């Protein structure tokens, strides 16, 4: 079992963050504990980038995030939170604070869901979950809060 460190490291990372199988020989319970700990750490990291989304979900934030992130490798905290907020919007479960944060992000940057977000150069208006935000010359204003 040597000479293939790269492949074995890749298998382990896939098991921890991408829903891959447990590599042979590893003890299942400690690796599972590490996998869960990584999800909690990711939840805390994303909450720092999306404080209103996390605050809006309150006590439900850790479970909501980890259920979404389980088996889904990270694209970085900014994009992870963005993808989750859009999914909650589409499900109709985005809380008002999260809707306002999402609208503000959508109006400030262009994000196609695949590549890193890029600042919008032109004025824009964006809606999310009933919230409306506008951006002019890089300044973002919330025109209408999400309904409570």
């Amino acid at each position, binding site marked *: *079992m*040597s000479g293939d*460190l790269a492949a*074995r490291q890749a298998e382990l*990372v*896939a098991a*921890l963050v991408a829903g891959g199988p447990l590599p042979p020989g590893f003890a299942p319970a400690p690796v599972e*504990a590490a996998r869960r*700990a990584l999800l909690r750490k990711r939840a805390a990291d994303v909450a720092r980038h999306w404080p209103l989304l996390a605050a809006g979900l309150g006590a439900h934030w850790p479970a909501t995030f980890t259920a979404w992130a389980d088996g889904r490798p990270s694209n970085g905290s900014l994009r992870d939170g963005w993808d989750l907020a859009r999914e909650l919007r589409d499900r109709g479960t985005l809380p008002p604070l999260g809707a306002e944060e999402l609208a503000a992000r959508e109006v400030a940057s262009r994000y196609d869901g695949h590549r890193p977000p890029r600042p919008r150069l032109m004025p824009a208006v964006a809606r999310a979950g009933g919230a409306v935000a506008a951006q002019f010359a890089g300044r973002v204003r919330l025109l209408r809060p999400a309904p409570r």
Partner: protein
Amino acid sequence: MSGPSGVGIGWRPEIAGFVAGLPGLRFVEVVAEAVAPAGPLPDGLAELRGRGVDVVPHGVRLSLGGAEPVDPARVAHLAAVAAALDAPLVSEHIAFVRAGGLEAGHLLPLPRSREAVAAVVANVRRTQAELPVPLALEPIAALFDWPDDELDEADFLTEILDATGALLLLDVANVHANARNRGGEPTALLDRLPLERIAYAHVAGGAEHGGFYHDTHTDPVPAAVLDLVRELCQRRRPPALLLERDGHYPPAAELRAELDALAAASGHPAVT
């Protein structure tokens, strides 16, 4: 620029005001990836440098333990941060953080094998060749072991340090966590590590969760970790100690009390 001394704390933007208000502070650490070396330094850090406080860049994403060669751009960034901060040294981990195109999001343990030693040594040498200052290596906390370890922890670490000439950043909380979760006597490990190579030591808090001790950096420092600080300080001249706190920041009085507890355990002067 004298190198880490006394009791320090990990500088984070959220506690910059608290850190700036510590009158006896001689050194801090900053997450290297959070510093843009070409731009102006964050306000609080520039002020600390102006006071003569040493700032040690602490890398977390170099992946020195990766089977692939370390990314030259990441090494160049670390070197540039060290230069921008006029740092006495930099530190990184004996760990890998990505493989197969996926980011793990955290520090992962290596197999304690000859193959892994060779991979780490090669990456440390590549890094040292570009750094303007010495490099200290930190053994990590892990919840699990690889199935085919050939070396024990002390031999694994000593071989890496001997082959690279790197300094040791000993994380006392990691020693506690590993003994608690993976077995072994923490003081027995202290007895076998090359303690004379310690550049400074980390201390952090953690919590029990699901039958494991998690080195969270978001909980208070447990008494068992402070006991281990005392054990370390009985075995050699007390090294500089750095408190790591990465979230769930407590009221200032609690953070001051943790710094004072480190001073008391080591005999260093209080920095508060």
